[in-house]
């Protein structure tokens, strides 16, 4: 399910070195749990994002394993340290093999 998947990430544009910043991420995804049934009573197959990784200049901030119990449009809020200017990379891994990536830059000064 590659249609309609849109990552949205909120990262401050500037920070001081060593600052703690709060990052909010959201990706639109229906997160089909594999528990629901359609009108004919057939189980709708599971289709979720199973992993989310946030990195800064190649170093991991958070690595989350998702199960079907995560709500539609998975949302995460967490805190990171920024030692220098650079890029945050956010990656979502879909059950169907798709990988969604978005990048945000932050300048330290």
């Amino acid at each position, binding site marked *: 399910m590659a249609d309609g998947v849109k990552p949205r990430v909120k990262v401050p544009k500037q920070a001081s070195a060593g600052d*703690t*910043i709060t990052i909010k991420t959201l990706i639109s995804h229906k997160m089909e*749990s594999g*528990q*629901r*049934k359609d009108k004919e009573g057939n189980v709708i197959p599971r289709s979720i994002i199973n992993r989310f990784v946030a*990195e*800064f200049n190649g*170093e*991991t*901030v*958070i*690595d*989350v*394993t*998702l*199960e*079907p*119990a*995560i*709500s*539609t449009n*998975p*949302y*995460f*809020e*967490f*805190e*990171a*340290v*920024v*030692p220098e200017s650079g890029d945050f990379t956010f990656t979502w891994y879909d059950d169907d093999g798709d990988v969604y990536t978005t990048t945000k830059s932050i300048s330290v000064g």
Partner: protein
Amino acid sequence: MELTRRQTLLTAAGAAVAAVLPLRGYAAVEESVATFTGGVEPGSGGITLTAPEIAENGNTVPVEVSAPGAVAIAVFALGNPVPPVATFNFGPLAASQSASTRIRLAGTQEVVAVAKMADGSFVADRKEVKVTIGGCGG
């Protein structure tokens, strides 16, 4: 207060239900938690799980976990068809070992967060969440 026959029966039935319910819950917890801890019994303290007491919509229940010094935090919903909810692994650039997300709960149940600390020990916190409308579809 004088106990009538009806009251005695009701009390006995209530006690029986109360005795059976937690047992079922614990079996489910132990199984899913043990896969995360490798069989180690988690201690308490050092971890905070924040969840609403009453969630109107089980499809999206905001939860927050925080455990300073943790390497990883796993969240379990004991009453769900699939108890594991999510596992957060913290990297070197995580400013705090905390995260918030939104989860699905099938019904009123206990949510458990287990943290793996840097020294290899485990701590757990649990919260009862009352759910008005379950979030597993039909």
